[in-house]
């Protein structure tokens, strides 16, 4: 527990004090260099958990430690260098070029009023290359497709060079080709020592990348553990209230439901 990159103890949080909390005694410890999938039905609090981990919402009770230090003790820009978030989607009405948009990931590495340097542009360009979007660097953001936009947001987070990368439904808008590419990117980041944490609704993505799983259920304390122990037919059937089977096809696990 001590060498964990991210440790949560009994995190409880809700948006309104007069209602039941959204997050209920969330406790887990994520070891560095692993990929955690947060799985649960709509409304179970997955995105809320990411907001709390980001420090955007303060938990009602409990403690969050990042690399052995309380998350609250990090300065803003320090936190921006440790943690990055890939949101589900983001809207801008303005004609930013893809490169200028990705470049904003460099903000926590710059003094508040400094301009990005050539080195920052280089990092942003190589992040775009990693997600396979180098050719679109000059494209205006509003003209991108939903999938391209999601990959661009991933590139911005990669340009941020975080130790812990959080992705909120990263494959929601992606076609099969880009889904495979994102899985590959996540594997590559893990091999570079980045710890990843994603929420995901797609069992085959979870089965393909996750080392650990946090199963969330509205109103219940979540269950944390290695993929093969937590992501089971019984548990999935319970949280989704559907008969679910895990089958193996050509050596890969798949989820079947009726």
């Amino acid at each position, binding site marked *: 527990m001590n060498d964990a990159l991210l440790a949560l103890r009994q995190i409880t949080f809700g948006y309104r004090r007069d209602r039941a909390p959204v997050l209920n005694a969330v406790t887990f410890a994520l070891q560095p260099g692993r990929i955690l999938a947060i799985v649960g039905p709509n409304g179970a609090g997955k995105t809320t958990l990411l*907001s709390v981990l*980001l*420090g*955007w919402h303060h938990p009602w009770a409990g403690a969050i430690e990042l690399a052995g230090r309380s998350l609250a003790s990090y300065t*803003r*820009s*320090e*936190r*921006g*260098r440790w*943690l*990055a*978030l890939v*949101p589900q989607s*983001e*809207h*801008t*009405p*303005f*004609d*930013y*070029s893809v*490169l*200028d948009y990705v470049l*904003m*990931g460099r*903000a*926590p590495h710059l003094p*508040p*009023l*400094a*301009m*990005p340097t*050539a080195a920052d*542009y*280089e990092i942003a*360009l*190589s992040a775009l*290359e990693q997600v396979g979007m*180098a050719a679109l*660097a000059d494209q*205006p953001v509003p003209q991108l497709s939903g999938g391209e936009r999601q990959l661009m947001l991933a590139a911005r987070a990669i340009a*941020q060079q975080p130790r812990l990368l959080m992705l909120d439904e990263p494959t929601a808008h992606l076609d099969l080709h880009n889904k495979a590419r994102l899985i590959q990117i996540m594997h590559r980041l893990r091999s570079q020592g980045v710890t990843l944490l994603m929420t995901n609704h797609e069992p085959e993505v979870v089965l393909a990348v996750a080392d650990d799983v946090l199963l969330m259920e509205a109103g219940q304390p979540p269950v944390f553990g290695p993929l093969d122990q937590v992501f089971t037919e019984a548990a999935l059937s319970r949280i989704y209230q559907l008969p679910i089977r895990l089958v193996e096809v050509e050596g890969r696990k798949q989820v079947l439901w009726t």
Partner: protein
Amino acid sequence: MTAAALQSVVRRNHRRQQWLWLLAAMTLAIFVLSLLLGRYPAPGLLDWSRLGEDELALRLVINLRLPRLITALLLGMTLSAAGMVFQLLFSNPLVEPGFLGVSQGAAFGAAAAIVFLGGAAVVTQVAAVGFALAGLGFSYLLARRLRYGGWVLRLLLAGIAVSALFSAGVGLLKYLADPLTQLPEITFWLLGSLASITWGKLLGVVAPVSISLLVLWFFRWRLNVLALNEETAFSLGAAPGRERLLLIVAAVLPTALLISISGIVGWVGLIVPNFTRRIFAADTRFGLPATMLIGGIFVMLCDDLARTLLPGEIPLGILTSFFGALAFLGLMMLQPSRPKS
């Protein structure tokens, strides 16, 4: 691959920087020419050498044209920069700094001073700036009490409500005003003019206006980050609440101060930033300085026309609306390919 791409980005930034220098040079040139432009001794440009001989010409240039021109430059820079800041922070290309109750507040203050307090210039100015800031403060307090939407939306809704209230007040004052003396004065104020600018008026506002412009200029790249949604800006290490409030104050305060001496000069804050974005793309690192310079040039040119086109003065707001709309329409219809800068 990356090396070549990086080269082209560095070249692109270099070109944008050169565009800024070009705009700065144009601003300076137009400033000097405007100083010599007028209707004395005859309509047209004043001969430079005449300034040494003709005492009246020199006094005219130093005491009348110079403060007026500096005010026009500052007004254009401020309205455009404030407009761009607002459009980014509110993620809406159709807002401008007057939205937060400032323009209508100033209009109400000026109209009230004209109707009830005799309308002496100083009184009108103090009332205008007082009510402009009151409009801002009122919008802010109201936004904190609204229970709907994120704070950006709340601020905008509160500002629109406060503007509507003040605009109802302006309507009432116009109705009450003496149609022969006070009403024309109110109407003239609402159309904006720099005809009555003196060194005294300019010096009263120049320090806070310059400081605000400097603050906005220093934030020119960071503004991009603050324009992202709040949680994302936070995840990038910003303090969106605090920093956005600072920028809003740095945008609204100089706007309020300047319109208190110029009257309402319409559409600059809305059109110039959109015009600039068409030419310079959205990145405010170059876009914000560019919009300041383009706005300064635009208002200087409009004011040149306002004071020279006819023997009498044309209200500035009429010209900024007319030429601003024409330029913007032209740009929209021509759809020029953005310079590859």
